[in-house]
């Protein structure tokens, strides 16, 4: 019940990790548009570490949530049955894949075909990972979370954040490439914004009528629509900055947009955790 801020570490994780992961989708799109065929390829490969670091920071956040992080390797024992194990496993698979890509790319060991193949795989895993971040909360004793809305919004947040973060990654390497791929990043962000906002709204609406002995779930978070608004506004700002990059990508503006969007998603996540309500007590 209750206070979403008590799960701030998880909110950091679910904000940053899917966002970092989905940023690779923008890289993948850029790759198919030939971004890695020019002189900027080397800088781009270095910049690709940025989303990887964002994912890692997210994982570190999750680590702090644990009371006994040293036991963390036991987490794979529950694969199949525990949604958390599934999420972590998918996340680790994604991370290894993404790390392999980054390392091989920087080392110059990737043929064009291998690069494309790997980026497609990483992108698919990014989406799968975002979905599993949502699935992790679909526990049958928690009616406010046990809904597709949990999954939908998580996917949306990943795409929203990933689109802008991906664009920032490109912009840090080469302004022209960023300009050329701005549509892809913006489209991803806008799609993510729509999906995320819809998923969160769906959950909030459902929470109005989900009740246990303590009352309805929505009553627990009186500011829930405010948090929703924060997500929407931050998301629109982020998507707008992505859109303006079609003309002139400004790395600083994109970086600020990434922060704004991350804050928006973080607030939405706080709202999500606040809506936690057990079927009974």
């Amino acid at each position: 019940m209750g206070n979403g801020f008590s799960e701030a570490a998880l909110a950091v994780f679910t904000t940053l990790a899917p966002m970092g992961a989905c940023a690779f989708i923008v890289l993948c799109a850029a790759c198919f548009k030939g971004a890695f065929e020019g002189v900027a390829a080397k800088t781009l490969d270095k910049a690709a570490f940025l989303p990887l670091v964002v994912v890692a920071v997210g994982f570190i956040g999750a680590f702090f949530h644990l009371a006994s992080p040293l036991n963390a390797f036991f987490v794979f024992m529950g694969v199949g049955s525990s949604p958390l194990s599934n999420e972590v496993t998918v996340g680790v698979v994604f991370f290894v894949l993404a790390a392999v890509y980054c390392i091989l790319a920087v080392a110059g060991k990737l043929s064009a075909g291998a690069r494309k193949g790997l980026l497609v795989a990483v992108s698919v895993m990014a989406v799968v990972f975002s979905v599993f971040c949502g699935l992790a909360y679909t526990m049958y004793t928690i009616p406010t979370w046990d809904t597709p809305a949990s999954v939908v919004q998580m996917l949306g947040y990943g795409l929203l954040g990933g689109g802008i973060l991906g664009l920032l990654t490109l912009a840090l390497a080469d302004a022209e490439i960023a300009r050329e791929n701005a549509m892809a990043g913006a489209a991803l962000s806008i799609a993510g914004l729509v999906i995320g906002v819809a998923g969160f709204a769906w959950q909030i609406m459902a929470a109005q009528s989900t009740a246990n002995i303590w009352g309805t779930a929505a009553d627990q978070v009186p500011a829930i629509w405010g948090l929703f608004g924060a997500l929407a506004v931050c998301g629109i700002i982020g998507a707008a900055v992505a859109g303006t990059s079609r003309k002139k990508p400004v790395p600083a503006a994109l970086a600020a947009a990434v922060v704004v969007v991350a804050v928006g998603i973080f607030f939405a996540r706080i709202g999500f955790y606040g809506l936690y309500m057990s079927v009974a007590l």
Partner: protein
Amino acid sequence: MTQYGFYFDATRCTGCKTCEAACRDYHNLDLGTTFRHVYELEGGGWNQAEDGTWTTDSFTYYTSFACQHCDDPACMHVCPTGAMHKDENGIVSVDTGRCIGCGYCHMACPYDAPFVDRAKGHSVKCDGCKDRIAEGKQPMCVEACSMRALQFAPVDQLPEGERAAVAPLPDPELTKPNLYIKNCAAAHAVGDTSCRVANEAEVK
């Protein structure tokens, strides 16, 4: 496998919380934490007649419970490490060497049984006083109840009772709790929304 379970004779309970006190003492629980809960529910209201006299159809009743050592424990389902496990007596407890303290068991359990003790670095919960059971003794709460309202035994040896089907508890179909209750007259059914928790400060 033997399946141990609790029996709660609600018709004897006076809400005194000695079960909870004894458990907190024996397990040396920190302030603010408890394995056993005693919920006070109330409902109904008051009516004043024209002559100023009062009548009431209000009711109050207590339900005492800890971990139900469910047949189908939600905590075990979500546990990523398998630390949460059932032993040969059907008692659900935490393998502390394996628990990462992620808190999913706490979130998933609809009985508010396990919680993470960050200082200890793992989840903690009612383990049916299994060390005492092994010595042929009763769990501390059972032994403490001055009204003899609690029992703990293999479920086929418990007196007849309804399977934990009383507000504020969840639908027993969900996790198949091993708590059998002899309901008191004031008890209301699972999901009843006409009653409210009357001792929120004591159970939250």
